[in-house]
């Protein structure tokens, strides 16, 4: 952290709310959103640019995220979590990703992919052992599903474990795992001797378990990504989730995370829009602000239109989540639409900033590069289309 420069540039972000969505949120939702916005301005904005430039994961922020309540806000308070609803969770992810998609990834993985499965499928001992520490940010977790040769098709994974009395012996490797180089625990999905997928908690320090970092990323540079390598790791059977078998386990977690990403993408889009709007009014060419030219106005008008649509999609989806009625296909629609929308806005906003848009003076290029991961992980853009296609036609076009 000593080498990270704090920027003294003021973060003047103002969120667009063209359809007065604020009227649809409770006072508490607005307080939650504004608190996270303030936290991001204080903790993330001053360091994020340099962290990304230097490809540095600001590990100290994990504790601070825990303190403000960014980990597992949607899980019950009895395990030290937030006890809030899905609208609150969504708004928090929006604000966090407004700061940076990498920071949001850290929180998504911890809250939706590590804490959520422990809560949903774990034993009472597992819940009490891990959830309070994960919620406070005293422990960092990661989620291992993807393998080097099995990405979009996780059911053909090869990572597996064999029975060994009150332990199992785990072998295999996971790739592209967010948080892995710093994680204290990993929720790993692997096949048992019958070839059925099960979830198992692997702790750092177990013999044969290593987490090499993936270098050279141009995206999510402030989030650490790595591998999980299991070389005959002896894991107690008590670490296996008793509550789920099959692909349903990881897919349930992904639903929760993808929902958060749908909101997060709006945050990134809002930041690009806000910056582009401001810049277009300050930057003069041909004797007037560039925002006065029709071509720039078209870009801004379309950005605001898309953000407004995405906000409404998320608001409705949040209520469906609260009522337990949201379907995976509905979540796919939101994740697919909103991330694509944000990426498109980032590209347009980059052009409005002209040459300045490629520098770290403005957040645009960082958001754009980040969003290239966001559109790939948690189900690629294509895969979500196939999910929707299957929903519409009943025909499986995956294989």
């Amino acid at each position, binding site marked *: 952290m000593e080498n990270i420069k704090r920027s003294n540039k003021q973060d003047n972000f103002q969120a667009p709310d063209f359809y007065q969505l604020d009227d649809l949120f409770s006072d508490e939702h607005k307080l939650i959103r504004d*608190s996270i916005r303030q936290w991001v301005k204080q903790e993330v904005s001053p360091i994020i640019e340099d962290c990304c430039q230097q490809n540095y994961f600001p590990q100290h922020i994990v504790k601070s995220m825990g303190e403000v309540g960014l980990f597992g806000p949607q899980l019950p308070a009895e395990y030290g979590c937030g006890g809030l609803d899905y609208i609150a969770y969504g708004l928090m992810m929006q604000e966090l990703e407004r700061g940076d998609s990498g920071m949001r990834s850290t929180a998504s993985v911890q809250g939706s992919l590590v804490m959520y499965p422990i809560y949903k499928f774990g034993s009472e001992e597992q819940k009490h052992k891990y959830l309070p520490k994960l919620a406070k940010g005293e422990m960092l977790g990661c989620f291992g599903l993807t393998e080097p040769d099995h990405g979009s098709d996780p059911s053909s994974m090869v990572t597996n474990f064999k029975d060994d009395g009150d332990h199992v012996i785990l072998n295999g490797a996971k790739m592209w795992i967010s948080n892995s180089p710093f994680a204290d625990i990993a929720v790993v999905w692997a096949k048992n001797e019958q070839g059925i997928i099960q979830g198992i908690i692997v702790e750092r320090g177990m013999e044969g378990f290593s987490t090499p970092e993936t270098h050279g990323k141009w995206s999510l540079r402030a989030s650490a990504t790595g591998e999980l390598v299991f070389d005959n790791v002896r894991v107690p059977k008590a670490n296996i989730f008793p509550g789920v078998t099959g692909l349903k386990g990881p897919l349930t977690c992904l639903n929760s995370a993808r929902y958060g990403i749908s909101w997060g993408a709006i945050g990134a889009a809002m930041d690009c829009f806000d910056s582009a709007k401001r810049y277009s009014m300050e930057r003069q060419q041909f004797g007037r602000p560039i925002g006065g030219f029709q071509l720039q106005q078209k870009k801004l008008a379309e950005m605001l239109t898309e953000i407004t649509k995405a906000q409404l999609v998320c608001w409705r989806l949040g209520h469906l989540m609260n009522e337990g009625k949201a379907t995976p296909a509905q979540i796919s629609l939101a994740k697919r639409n909103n991330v694509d929308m944000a990426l498109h806005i980032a590209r347009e906003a980059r052009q409005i900033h002209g040459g300045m848009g490629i520098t770290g003076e403005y957040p645009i290029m960082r958001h754009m590069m980040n969003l290239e991961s966001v559109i790939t992980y948690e189900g690629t853009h294509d895969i979500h289309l196939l999910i929707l296609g299957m929903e519409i036609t009943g025909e499986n076009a995956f294989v």
Partner: protein
Amino acid sequence: MKILVCISNVPDTTTKVTFTEGNTRFNNAGVQYIINPYDELSLTRALELTEAQGGTVTVINVGLVDTEANIRKALAIGAHEAIRINAKPVDAYYVAEQIAEVAINGGYDIVMTGRESIDYNSGQVCGLLAEMLGWPGINVITKIDIDGGKAICERDIDGGKEKVSCSLPCVISAQKELTEPRIPNMRGIMAARTKPLQVLEPTSNQAHTKVSVYELPPAKSSCKMIDPANAGQLIDLLHNESKVI
């Protein structure tokens, strides 16, 4: 130790100010309200003092029901309980009268306010309260510690600092440097749901002052450019048009 923190509800600092009712009322249509920033500092310092020495922090606001969102925020930041006096805060004297009533009956050791509210900026409530209560009052403080039943405060004065102490109970008002504000965390927001918020009716409904009219500062007029060769024209304009020389 029991501390009463006065919080007022003020327009967000980015608000564009306009007036209605023949320029005698602030137009609050579409305005976002926040806790007066100086009051938030008082609240935070009050929490620090009670966390270190034990005690409770009560926040009080004179306002109608629409101020409750910010009262809940104060509870989320950490205040233990809240009181709302159900009345429009018509002027500083009126507000101080309402708060004094609560302060006397509640057995508080310290009443804290901000140095001024950032909307009307009259900065009177601290002084009025001290007078009404007959307690010592220290205005615009940058530091407060409690030691042996005394408040020890610091204030910035021209070219230096002043250290002042007084016995408890007392009234103080916060200046910017008092402490750093806290961001509410999710646990605090959850806890705020069930913390007591008592609504009391006002003791009177009498304003002591009346606003005749508000005026906005004159709009910036456009800039006249004068050729450096015509210095005479500049002097002429300054003398005859803007009448400054």
